């Protein structure tokens, strides 16, 4: 039990995928302009990331590893992730039109989110089991969503702030992201304490 709690805390805070491992930066910059879109993206990512990390684990454990094809991991995982995203979109479209409207365009966008592939590959590297893989994916997604929402909130305030001319737009966003990243480095102390 303690081990699972550690995985969650590690992925959400200490080894946050966006601000510590620098994965999934494209949606981090792309959809963080508004709080609502950030929440939609966070929700969609949480859903897909958890599911795809479990599926990637199963693919690796029962298809690639027995045949000695570990070198095909990357391409096989990309395939599995794309299918999981597509499948999720269809199921959500059918079963919950409301959720489909909330997630909207973000669902297919996740296929190209490098954090999803990153989590799948890191799971194998860390030799996580079935449950641990799912938790690892879920924790990573929660961390990602949290950062996205926090960053969107910051950007909404920056949008109305008096930023010097040369720092406007992407420049101030990147500086803010850097400061956030610095702040999250502080959580490394949690592990030692």
């Amino acid at each position, binding site marked *: 039990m303690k081990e699972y709690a550690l995985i969650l805390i590690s992925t959400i805070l200490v080894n946050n995928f966006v601000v510590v491992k620098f994965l999934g930066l494209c949606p981090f910059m792309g959809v963080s302009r508004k709080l609502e879109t950030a929440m939609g993206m966070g929700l969609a990512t949480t859903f897909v990331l958890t599911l795809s990390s479990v599926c990637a684990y199963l693919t690796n454990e029962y298809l690639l590893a027995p045949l000695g*094809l570990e070198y*095909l991991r990357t391409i096989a995982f990309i*395939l*599995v992730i794309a*299918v999981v995203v*597509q499948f999720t979109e269809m*199921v959500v479209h*059918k079963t919950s039109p409301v959720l489909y409207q909330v997630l909207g365009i973000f669902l297919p966008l996740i296929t190209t989110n490098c954090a999803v592939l990153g989590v799948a590959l890191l799971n194998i590297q860390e030799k996580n089991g079935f449950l641990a893989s799912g938790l690892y994916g879920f924790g990573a997604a929660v961390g990602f969503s949290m950062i996205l929402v926090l960053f969107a909130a910051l950007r909404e305030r920056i949008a109305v702030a008096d930023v010097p001319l040369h720092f406007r737009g992407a420049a101030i966003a990147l500086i803010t992201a850097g400061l956030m990243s610095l702040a999250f480095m502080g959580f490394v102390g949690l592990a030692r304490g």
Partner: protein
Amino acid sequence: MLTAIIALSVLAGGCGLLLGFAAVRFRVDGDPIVARIDALLPQTQCGQCGFPGCWPYAEALAAGQAEINQCPPGGEAGIQALADLLGRDPKPLNPDNGTVRSKMVAIIDEQTCIGCTLCIQACPVDAILGAPKLMHTVIAKECTGCELCMAPCPVDCINMVPVKETLSTWKWPCPVLPGDALPDHRAAA
């Protein structure tokens, strides 16, 4: 090498089958007929049909709760198109809903406008620009000529002006065959 090719092919094939199955199993049965009817309507959002816009009218048509001859801006050609799509008999425009007129555009007399914003709230397509106590103006390109802004204006400063045909707006008139509007033309064809 061969195992790798086979394994990936099997994986890809399995995924393809799963997606194909999902596409059939989770097909969404939206109501495409409403969208097709809506595409035939002129999108003036004028409400002359008695419904609060083109989409609600399309929904009512699809449900069989409205007649096809309630849309004056669509004119004869619009009724004909709706009759073809829905398999109903074309009939002349219902005079209760209005008459066919040439395309109009609203013009605000800016000298008289008092900036009350009432017409802005009435406009169904957001074609009127202005602020409280400041003069308003109509974005002629967006105006559908629905006349909904005329009634609320307290100083009657809005006039409907027919759109002049220019080289860029002129279109061939739709060919109307003799007997096209007759109810039994389909049986003859």
